[in-house]
């Protein structure tokens, strides 16, 4: 395995919970790998499956979708719908023989700074084991 490989993870963080959780992890000066590229969305259900497919094919080593815990959604039910959409996408990835392990859905609340750091650390480790996304160098996508 390439020791120098530094994964790039694109994270869609919901404005009300996970983004604030990331903020808290930052101001608490918690240590975590600098692998995340954050995109703030108003709700995890705003993440169109196309966004995930798109960043995966462009070459993101991992894609994280994070939102409020079930029942805590700012919009009552957004995260439940996000979970359904995510489950469908994951199923499609598995059906087509694509690496569905590069996709992750996590619930992180605004108060879970350490939880956020843990998710990022864990996910980065997992991606390191998987290696770089082969889509990165494909020409004929």
């Amino acid at each position, binding site marked *: 395995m390439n020791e120098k490989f530094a994964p790039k993870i694109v994270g869609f963080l919901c404005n009300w919970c996970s983004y604030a959780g990331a903020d808290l992890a930052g101001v608490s000066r918690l240590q975590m790998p600098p692998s995340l590229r954050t995109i703030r969305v108003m709700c995890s259900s705003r993440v169109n499956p*196309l966004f995930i497919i*798109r960043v995966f094919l462009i070459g993101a080593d991992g894609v994280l979708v994070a939102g409020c815990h*079930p029942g805590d959604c700012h919009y009552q039910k957004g995260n439940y719908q996000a979970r359904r959409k995510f489950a469908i996408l994951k199923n499609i990835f598995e059906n087509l023989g*694509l690496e569905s392990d590069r996709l992750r859905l996590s619930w992180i609340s605004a108060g879970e700074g350490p939880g956020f750091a843990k*998710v990022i650390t864990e996910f980065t480790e997992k991606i390191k084991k998987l290696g770089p996304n082969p889509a990165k160098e494909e*020409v004929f996508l």
Partner: protein
Amino acid sequence: MTKVLKTNKSVEEAVKELLKFLLKSGKVKGVFTLRKINGNGAVAYSLITSLDMLKDAVPLFPLMPANAGKLLSNLTLRGSVVDPVVAVVRPCELRAFIELVKRKQGSLENLLLVSSTCAGVYPLEMAVNGDIDKKLSQYWDATKRGEIVPDTRPTCMGCEHFLPYTADITVTLIGKKDIDNQCEIFLNTEKGQQFVDGIDGEFVEGKLESEEVVSMRNKRKDEKKRLFDEIGIEKFGLKGLIETFGKCIGCHGCSKVCPICYCNLCYSDSKTYEHKPSVYEMQLKRRGGLRVPPDTISYQIGRLTHVGISCVGCGLCADVCPANIPISTIFLKVGDSVQKMFDYLPGRDVEEQIPVTTFETDEFVEVED
């Protein structure tokens, strides 16, 4: 047990007779069916109001020039038909229409839906080069014997949902040895019974789910399994996808004919992905080359996420593909798997909610980390 109208005519004739009766008696004002055009072999869906034109109707012709579900949606998008119209469609077309009605893209009001136990349709290519007329006797032979008709669309040969779910009237074809001089028309709903009230013929009781139907379903299931094993998409990976969709010329014909793809402003047809030169430069720096037009794979996977849940497997997408990509089989297989997650069958019942519009609070915890 269902009420059955029995007549001593060939199926083709009996159905035409039924349409004629409905139109003549004024019970319906229009007939939506396949019709021969100009006598040069062309067959197209038509909306007919004159009895004279009904002569050229070929309601059971084994061809699907367009998915009638989409056409019925076009007709009823801005409001239901004012006067009653009878529509003769195939089971998958009916299912597609139901899916569209669920999406508020059509209305079932004032429509009398007639369907049949479907033996499949031939690819469009055969209608264009004229082979279809030579195949007709073979088609009806196999149908009578209750066998899968060879050379029909691959997804037709592997279709288990050939029994219409929501039709008011169903004509039985599969495994009926004497369809040349006898016809059984099942009146599934009260609406169906009311409409045929007063027609010549004998009324008996019957069961739609006959032995022939069960045996055909088993044959189709085996064929479906064979089809899915053959395509082997779970081994695709990125390499396989590039190989399969590398042939794509980006015409987006598959989405144009797809009954479920109804958005009139498609993301993939928009200018969203027409980037500034700097974006291409960034990509090129890393890859050393770029396919033009790009995004064939994101287009196909994206379409899978959008329509997979409601794919009825009509097979039109593969039929119109100029690059001969077996899209319909891929979509049917992935669609099947996605639909199974929710125990959902597109077009089974208009009251059944589309899974992506609803949720359970305690499900799919396995996808969370």
